[in-house]
């Protein structure tokens, strides 16, 4: 359980995190979503007692992190998988971590096994690929068998197999009743992994809701429609408050009415429908809609590229 209250961090004139309050509950995957530079990492560093808040506070299991006696048994965190001295072996890296919290050394080989690095336990970390570093970071986070796990952008640089593995791991940790807090700037990833979303933009919380609820609230479902009497249908639907855009191939994209309502309106006016297809709503649309004013920099083409992916 993580509880932040009016958490604020100021660097000179920049307000990196602004009066942020949220609770991360056990038993579910909570996504911490926001564009780069929104304040996700700063918030996570404050949770871990690495950065001191300018004001406000954040508790882990009811205590400030720095007061935890053996913090690795309470919270396992992966902030930056590359932040590691490369000269040691993977097993040695985990051994010093285990020693620092009085964790039995046999746990080192257990977690290496969980993340699939047993075969390279004796290899220098400096020779590891990004994906292997990421797995080692997760092994380190699991070392103390913590009730709370926290991962900052864990899928960065991973191949599809690795992404799937992490996604399943998060879900299984949550299903065991643990608190799973996961940051990402990738909306599509969050849609598939997170049960709950905390969206941050420019240092402020702009949404805190269940993933489904978030989608429903922030996206307008749209329907693709073609009809023989297309102009008549357009007029009828507009009168009923729908918003109509013309698609490139002659179809209309209708927002503000679902397909049942459109079908009903068509039949009431004896309009023959050729096509009636719900387009669904994308979480990414909701995210971009919500954060477009909050993002520090607007890279239009970049956003479009991500959207298309």
């Amino acid at each position, binding site marked *: 359980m993580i509880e932040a209250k009016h958490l604020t961090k100021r660097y000179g004139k920049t307000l990196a995190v602004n009066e942020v309050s949220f609770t991360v509950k056990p038993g579910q995957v909570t996504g911490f979503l926001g564009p780069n530079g929104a304040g996700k990492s700063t918030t996570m560093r404050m949770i871990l007692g690495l950065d001191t808040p300018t004001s406000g506070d954040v508790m882990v299991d009811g205590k400030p992190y720095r007061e935890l006696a053996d913090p690795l048994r309470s919270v396992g*965190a992966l902030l930056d998988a590359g*932040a590691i001295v490369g000269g040691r072996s993977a097993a040695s890296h985990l051994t*010093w971590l285990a020693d*620092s919290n009085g964790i039995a050394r046999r746990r080192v080989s257990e977690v290496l096994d969980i993340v699939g690095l047993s075969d390279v336990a004796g290899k220098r970390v400096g020779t590891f690929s990004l994906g292997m570093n990421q797995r080692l970071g997760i092994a380190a986070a699991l070392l103390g068998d913590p009730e709370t796990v926290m991962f900052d952008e864990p899928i960065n640089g991973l191949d599809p197999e690795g992404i799937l593995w992490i996604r399943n791991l998060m879900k299984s940790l949550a299903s065991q009743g643990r608190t799973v807090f996961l940051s990402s700037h990738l909306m599509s990833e969050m849609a598939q992994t997170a049960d709950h979303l905390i969206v941050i933009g420019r240092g402020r919380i702009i949404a805190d809701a269940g993933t489904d609820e978030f989608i429903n609230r922030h996206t307008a479902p749209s329907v693709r429609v073609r009809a023989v009497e297309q102009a008549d249908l357009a007029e009828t639907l507009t009168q009923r408050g729908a918003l109509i855009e013309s698609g490139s191939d002659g179809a209309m994209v209708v927002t503000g009415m679902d397909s049942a309502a459109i079908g009903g309106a068509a039949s009431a006016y004896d309009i023959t429908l050729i096509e009636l297809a719900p387009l669904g709503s994308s979480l990414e649309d909701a995210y971009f809609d919500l954060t477009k004013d909050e993002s520090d920099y607007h890279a239009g083409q970049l956003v479009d590229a991500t959207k298309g992916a």
Partner: protein
Amino acid sequence: MSTATHTIDAIHFTAPAPPVRSSPPSWTLKSEWTKLRTLPSTWRTAVAAVSISVVLGAVLCISQANQWATMTAAQRATFDPTACSLGGFFLVGAVLLGALAVRTVTAEYSTGMIRSTFTATPTRRRVLGAKAAVTAAFAFPVALLAAVVSFEVGQRVFAGKHLQVSFGSPGVLQALVFAALAVSFVAIIGVGLGGLIRHTAGATTALVLVIVGGAVLGQFLPAGLRQYLPGTALEAAVTVHWSAGLLKPGTAIVVLGAYAGIALVAASLRVTHRDA
């Protein structure tokens, strides 16, 4: 959280550990020792420190022995075969071991691993204290070995001119132990400078200036102040034949210990009050 029931699976602990109220400092010491001994560069540094100290010491002794014939009576009177044989040790061995101590801190800052360290042990002064204790404890036997072998090789060189002293000669054993102790304090100063400066190059340069720079800077200072410079105190710690302008060896060790303490406290304050 405590009410949550867990399914048995591979992720779970085989046997839950008993809860601990506050972490014992021995965990941090053990952890820092694991860090130090599992870096191959630690052992390479130790081997380099001993071998270069011995070879350079021998070269300096050969040079001194060859100059003996042309030395003045005054120079001969203050000639210290013990200190001379440790010349290479102080020029290189102490610097290498000090730089190793610097890197125990700066390598973690430059890679960002310091965040893992402070996440595992949030009491940061304890982390620095453990690094200082562990590197000093590692430096002591390595430095003692370097000093003893340098001394022995040096005396064999001097034996050719019948200038040698032996382990049993007055003040020699103390000088060798003080040499190792002095390098342990240099290691602690290195940890302190690492915490204050955080960059390997900067902190190592600062350490070299502290050890060697004193000799250069010292010429502009009155002798009364000069003898308290770390570099001069280091030189004084191993003298068997006391000479003017140097502290007594015991005093010199105390002065070096004070420098180590100041560096460590300053670094602890700095590291604790700064975001990691």
